[in-house]
């Protein structure tokens, strides 16, 4: 028997390494970073600044190589041909010098600089695949039939990479302020984002589970990372226990799906289900329910939202920014992939459940937010209501629905990172000053920051000329297109309700008067955090005024299932 085992070669999957490049950059980078930092804990004071400055040009080179390796041609080949080679390469060198200068003026730490570099390289790799491979050859499989590279996965991978960059910039100043310096937070974030990328492209329920666990376990630890704050510990533990519970539901759902369809592979599931061989679908209904519970937890949809306010309030604020952006985006990507691709033939069976979730989430998110007095809790509920909006797009179960979800996810990522970024810098040491009263008079102390926060909040409320408006518009448009008027009406009504919440924060910033012992004294904010908030602001306003490019991007980004071939 053993001899036979030796003789039969196991079929090994075919791997397209270029398609995995963003994933590889993030995970291998995380491993190398932690290895480097566990050996070299302290750098000599006269070496460290130069090393950090060098990260700038190295990042530019890294992006260049990542994009080149991911694609099939030299990156920016068109531009090079237009400019002529010498001018182009001189330009590149100039960009490198500029990057070095930027890093130097930002005064960021080594770990943060490396993380930003890795995030940008992963972003460049995603862009390279998008521009030079996916648009040329169409969607393809990267590992056997387990991991697909399609526009949808690439868009979300880009979102994840971007949120890694922005949150790393926020984390740098935060960790220094709280004296929590160390590479761990960055490493966990990189690993978490790698898990998220696995989720976005997974073509198999088991691979989705693998991704979701990699993503979640890292975030559990990140939530508990502020080891001197009890709230942070509490948040980590709560998130972990409830998250493990939700994972069990998800796994149970996967088992039921396997029982009903005989496979965990989405391609096989789709083929089996659309062939109509399934006569009694009780098992499949149970599977839908359990999978929805599992995903609903990750995206914080009511009634599985109970952890959200406590965890958002307790966890370190930049981590909350990451949870609200990357984790949510990855969760929606996986949800959409499983239901829209794997289970599309049974859309009439799962659509009512998603509709109920959406309505409940919208109502809970907007109504509960009003009675809160802590800004982090308010934003937690508002993120719940945003999940409801995205669910409206999922519920539409149409091309427009998918596009609106993609658009919403991108826009919301920047909005929420910006909002929590502002909170990070104004909440004072130990994240203490997060109540509504602490924001009183912020417009006088920090006029620019208060203005940006106002814009982020208005964008979350869906005021025109911001990306938030376009996102909400597209989602409701998708619902109307599919003729679900009642859902569109619920969504619009709850948007009005939650607008009240955002206005409350704005009012307290502009009209409230600070009492004498305000925790936030208007000290200069860390430059890196300022850069992150600025980028988020630019994106929010930019895509609000000119939504066209992002809209086109989102409508290109369609998920696809490719069989083993």
């Amino acid at each position, binding site marked *: 028997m053993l001899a036979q*085992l030796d*003789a039969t070669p196991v079929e*090994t999957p075919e791997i397209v390494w270029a398609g995995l490049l963003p994933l590889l950059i993030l995970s291998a980078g995380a491993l190398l970073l932690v290895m480097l930092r566990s050996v070299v804990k302290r750098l000599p004071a006269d070496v460290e600044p130069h090393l950090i400055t060098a990260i700038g040009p190295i990042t530019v080179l890294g992006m260049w190589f990542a994009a080149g390796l991911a694609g099939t041609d030299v990156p920016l080949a068109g531009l090079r041909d237009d400019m002529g080679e010498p001018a182009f390469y001189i330009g590149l060198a100039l960009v490198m010098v500029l990057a070095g200068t930027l890093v130097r003026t930002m005064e960021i730490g080594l770990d943060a600089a490396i993380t930003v570099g890795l995030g940008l390289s992963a972003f460049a790799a995603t862009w390279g695949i998008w521009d030079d491979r996916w648009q040329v050859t169409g969607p393809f499989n990267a590992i056997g039939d387990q991991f697909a590279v399609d526009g949808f996965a690439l868009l979300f991978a880009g979102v994840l990479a971007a949120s890694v960059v922005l949150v790393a910039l926020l984390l740098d100043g935060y960790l220094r302020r709280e004296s929590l310096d160390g590479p761990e937070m960055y490493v966990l974030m990189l690993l978490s984002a790698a898990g998220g990328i696995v989720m976005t492209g997974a073509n198999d329920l088991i691979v989705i589970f693998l991704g979701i666990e990699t993503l979640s376990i890292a975030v559990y630890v990140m939530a508990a990372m502020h080891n001197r704050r009890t709230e942070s510990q509490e948040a980590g533990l709560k998130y972990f226990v409830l998250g493990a519970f939700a994972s069990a539901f998800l796994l149970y759902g996967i088992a039921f799906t396997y029982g009903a369809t005989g496979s965990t592979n989405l391609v096989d599931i789709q083929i089996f289900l659309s062939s109509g061989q399934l006569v009694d679908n009780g098992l499949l209904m149970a599977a839908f329910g359990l999978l929805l519970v599992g995903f609903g937890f990750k995206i914080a949809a009511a009634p599985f939202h109970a952890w959200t306010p406590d965890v958002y309030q307790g966890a370190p604020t930049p981590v909350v920014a990451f949870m609200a952006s990357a984790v949510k985006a990855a969760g929606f990507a996986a949800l959409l992939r499983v239901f829209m691709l794997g289970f599309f033939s049974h859309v009439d069976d799962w659509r009512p459940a998603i509709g109920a979730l959406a309505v409940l989430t919208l109502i809970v998110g907007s109504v509960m937010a009003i009675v809160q007095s802590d800004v982090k809790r308010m934003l937690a509920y508002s993120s719940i209501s945003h999940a409801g909006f995205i669910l409206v797009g999922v519920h539409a179960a149409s091309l427009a629905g998918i596009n609106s979800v993609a658009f919403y996810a991108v826009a919301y990522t920047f909005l929420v990172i910006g909002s929590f970024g502002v909170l990070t810098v104004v909440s004072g040491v130990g994240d203490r000053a997060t109540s509504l009263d602490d924001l009183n008079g912020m417009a006088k102390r920090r006029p620019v920051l208060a203005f940006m926060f106002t814009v982020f909040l208005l964008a979350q409320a869906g005021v025109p000329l911001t990306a938030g408006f376009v996102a909400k518009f597209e989602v409701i448009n998708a619902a109307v297109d599919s003729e679900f008027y009642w859902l569109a009406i619920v969504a619009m009504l709850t948007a009005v309700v939650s607008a009240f919440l955002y206005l409350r924060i704005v009012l307290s910033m502009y009209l409230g008067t600070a009492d004498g012992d305000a925790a936030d004294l208007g000290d200069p904010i860390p430059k890196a955090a300022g850069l992150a908030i600025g980028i988020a602001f630019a994106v929010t306003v930019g895509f609000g005024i000119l939504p066209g490019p992002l809209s086109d991007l989102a409508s290109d980004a369609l998920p696809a299932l490719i069989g083993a071939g």
Partner: protein
Amino acid sequence: MLGQYLPLLALLLLAAAFAAGSFIASGLLAPRNPSLAKRAAYECGIVPSRETPERFPVRFFLVAMIFIVFDIEIIFFYPYAVAFGGLGVFGLVLIMVFTFAVFESFVYLIGNGALEWGPLKQVARPSGAVSPDRTVETTIRRVGLEDRGIPADDGQAA
């Protein structure tokens, strides 16, 4: 194949019966006159003054947690060791990547002092306990030699 487990069960029962039988025999044969001193915790003759310890150094706990992670990782080697023939170079590369990841977390643990035990020779030496003129033979301070005009050692001071 399950047939091979019956003897194990039989041996298990036999061993348990042997232990139980010994207890019963000892219960019948042994004298029984306990006293307070006999039943107290043994502390080398000193009357126990404090409650039972329920805490022990957290380092042991840390070792236990690290062990669980490592043991699970090592268990993954067994399926590979049995089936490596069919997996070929692909399997080899994968197991190498896996091993690298294991090793990398190992370096992290060691670099952060999770497995640091023992004394720090450079700093922790209490002053006075060790003779300043210790010899290559011994580091023990020679007490009582100072005022007698006897040289502390024969010039081999290290």
